[in-house]
């Protein structure tokens, strides 16, 4: 009976090991490190794991030896000792020493990873429900970075692409080999910017600035995800960083600047049709996540815009809520996220779509005026 027990026990472990081995081509370890800090983290983890495997061999070895040999069914008689001061001192001291050995390299890495001095440039990262904004203060432009995986893939209506859920419309771009300081902020709730390859995970806390840094080893595209539960679409706000050679990076900066200049508010008035057309796009990227594609919302948390009293009421009220959000709810303030034209367009669009017929046209100038 007891030997069958042991066989079963062994069987369980073999099974567990087997399921590991069978998947040997899958990642069983941390992602490949691509920065000096990530490298140190990787090594720390490896050292710690081996120490622990060592301790485990001793601990489990003793236990299973005892289970095998000191059992009643093999006729073992119980001894009667119940303490031994020497042994107890030894097994209090040894773990202590081991822990110091583990803490020492960890301390060095901590000091290195927290040292943000001597960086050559700064990028400010702001978390929004549910997208990231990258601001390049030295260059004077910023942009939003939103999940680009089509809805159909998520709803299993289309085959999933290679970078399913890990792709965005506008990745963050950084030059290779430069120490880059990151500032983190959040607009609504706490988010966390996690890029495994660079060994960074930093919470973005509303109202406070936190910082971190990285120096990318090589050119490439690196992917991560938001790592702090931030509401409904927490699983759908990935992080993509493209690391480029300095020359390519400079080229990218020039392009971005040109784009920023082009989208600067023209202050021009548009027709209802033009605004609706622009607004539909703005709506799809900024609003549909909550209020849904057809404006049907997800009541009671996310109200429907189709048929909404606010959308069909006086325009001032709607301008106010879109510009300033509604504190205490998920409705964000778009005043500092979108341009006047975009806001005018999306409001015009919502007021004239899905059976809403406010019929009015809101122009960028009105939005500008509301900012005073």
């Amino acid at each position, binding site marked *: 009976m007891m030997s069958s027990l042991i066989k079963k026990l062994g069987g369980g472990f073999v099974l567990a090991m087997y399921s590991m081995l069978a998947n040997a081509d899958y990642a069983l370890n941390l992602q490949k490190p691509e920065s000096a800090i990530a490298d140190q983290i990787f090594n720390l983890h490896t050292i710690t794991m081996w120490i*622990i495997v060592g301790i485990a061999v001793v601990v489990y070895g003793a236990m299973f030896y005892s289970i095998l040999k000191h059992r009643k069914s093999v006729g073992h008689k119980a001894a009667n000792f119940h303490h031994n001061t020497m042994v107890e001192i030894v097994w209090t001291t040894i773990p202590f020493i081991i822990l110091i050995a583990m803490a020492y390299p960890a301390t060095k890495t901590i000091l290195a990873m927290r040292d943000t001095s001597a960086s050559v440039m700064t990028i400010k990262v702001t978390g929004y429900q549910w997208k990231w904004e990258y601001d390049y203060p030295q260059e004077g432009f910023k942009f939003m970075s939103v999940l680009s995986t089509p809805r159909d893939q998520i709803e299993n209506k289309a085959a999933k692409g290679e970078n399913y859920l890990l792709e965005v419309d506008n990745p963050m771009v950084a030059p290779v080999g430069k120490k880059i300081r990151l500032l983190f902020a959040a607009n609504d709730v706490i988010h966390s910017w996690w890029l495994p390859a660079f*060994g960074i995970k930093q919470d973005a806390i*509303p109202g406070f600035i936190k910082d971190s840094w990285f120096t990318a080893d090589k050119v490439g595209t690196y992917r991560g995800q938001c790592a702090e539960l931030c509401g409904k679409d927490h699983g759908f706000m990935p992080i993509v960083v493209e690391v480029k050679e300095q020359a390519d990076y400079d080229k990218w900066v020039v392009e971005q600047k040109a784009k920023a200049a082009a989208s600067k508010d023209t202050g021009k008035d548009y027709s209802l049709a033009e605004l609706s057309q622009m607004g539909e796009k703005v709506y799809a990227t900024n609003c549909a996540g909550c209020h849904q594609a057809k404006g049907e919302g997800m009541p009671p948390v996310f109200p429907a815009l189709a048929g909404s009293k606010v959308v069909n009421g006086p325009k001032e009220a709607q301008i106010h809520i879109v510009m300033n959000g509604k504190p205490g709810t998920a409705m964000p303030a778009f005043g500092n996220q979108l341009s006047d034209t975009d806001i005018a367009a999306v409001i015009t669009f919502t007021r004239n779509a899905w059976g809403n017929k406010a019929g009015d046209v809101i122009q960028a100038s009105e939005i500008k005026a509301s900012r005073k």
Partner: protein
Amino acid sequence: MEHGHDHHPSGIMRWVKTTNHKDIGTLYLLFSLVMFFFAGILAMCIRLELFQPGLQFFQPGTFNQLTTMHGLIMVFGAIMPAFVGFANWQVPLMIGAPDMALPRLNNWSFWLLPVAATLLVASFFVPGGAIAGGWTLYPPLYMQQGISGDMTIFAIHILGMSSILGSINIITTIMNMRAPGMTYMKMPLFVWTWFITAYLLIAVMPVLAGAVTMMLTDRHFDTHFFNAAGGGDPVMFQHIFWFFGHPEVYIMILPAFGIISTIIPTFARKPLFGYSSMVYATASIAILSLLVWAHHMFTVGMPTAAQLFFMYATMLIAVPTGVKVFNWIATMWQGSMTFETPMLFAIGFVALFTLGGFTGIVLAIVPVDIALQDSYYVVAHFHYVLVSGSLFAIFAGAYYWLPKWTGHMYNETLGKWHFWLSMVGFNVAFFPQHFLGLAGMPRRIPDYALQFADFNMISSLGAFLFGATQLLFVIVVIKCIRGGAKAGNKPWEGADTLEWTVPSPAPYHTFATPPTVK
């Protein structure tokens, strides 16, 4: 023994009005079983959604509700009440007391739980559904929760009251009701661990109550505790929460240590090795646990010095915990072991809890935690310590004392099946989650990138096996209550605590005249 209970109510009112520690213990245990199933079904829904990439069964908002309520109910509804149930049954029996010190208050501690459970379960059905911000309740996300946010806050207040009153009762019982001759250093280790746990509870539950009260006023009464615009800080909530939260996880493991320390000597037929070092180790764990909370917050960007302090303090806990593990093995060493179901679960506990402890140490190392925080590695860590730790200990204790409680032996074959299937299902479910976390899968997400697909599928299959296996436990318990081989006063050869000196099932009133302990 005869006098006094001639006009006891019967039927449902017996349970509603009871002041008997055994009745109340039973109520706690049944309540916890129901809650375990409820929260377990939520977990099955989680694993179902995560079986494959893509959204199949639940919308993201609903998924977050499942995760949050699974965590909250498992912690507050299943694990904690189960241990209080053990305390109610066993503490008076083990110290030779006629009952708990304050029997009426004891009844109230229990009957507060259904009120809190009503608020929690009902919150699924209010507009907006249950809270979806994680069991850690972090603001500002918590500010966005609907009516359920307020229901949960009050549920936590009531749960806190229940725990505080229950703990006061346990402390008073232990300090004041020990039989003559039962000195502190003669108390069974289970009593000791609960004694220390009760202190932890009255130290940290009021702090949690304070934290959620601030949340309530931030939500409705215009305060700015967790809002930077008014000089507050969302991270302040995390500090207060984890000042409660970390001791809370030891609250869920110390009584488990007590149960294991009772069972291993019994089946090794050998006295517990290092009794007094066990007591000191438990006390050190409890004291250290009040100083390590920020290891859950290494990524918030706290000052470097704070990171270092909390890392060192956290790692230090491995020392007293190690002492316990070594003592258990030394107790088995040179014993004469048999492997009935309670012993199997106890050995499973020692093996897998230690593994969970090891991953805890990995997480305590700040740079490594930066890579793993809020990933599935953490989920794996805490299910190893909570499921194969706390829950396995609960199973071990239940099998061990069922004969005393019901007067019948449980079905050993079914018990063994329960153990082995749990063991396999559990490891298949949670071991792969270490790899998922290392590879970069965040927790609390309803859908994931394709490289995580295979391990998630394996994990879900394991979870279904583990879940289905728990039905066996219910069958065993029901069979044992209804019949089975008669259990003698002392069905376990190696047992030596006081409860085994009274008949099985234990009579309604025991130790009306206290026994004398040599």
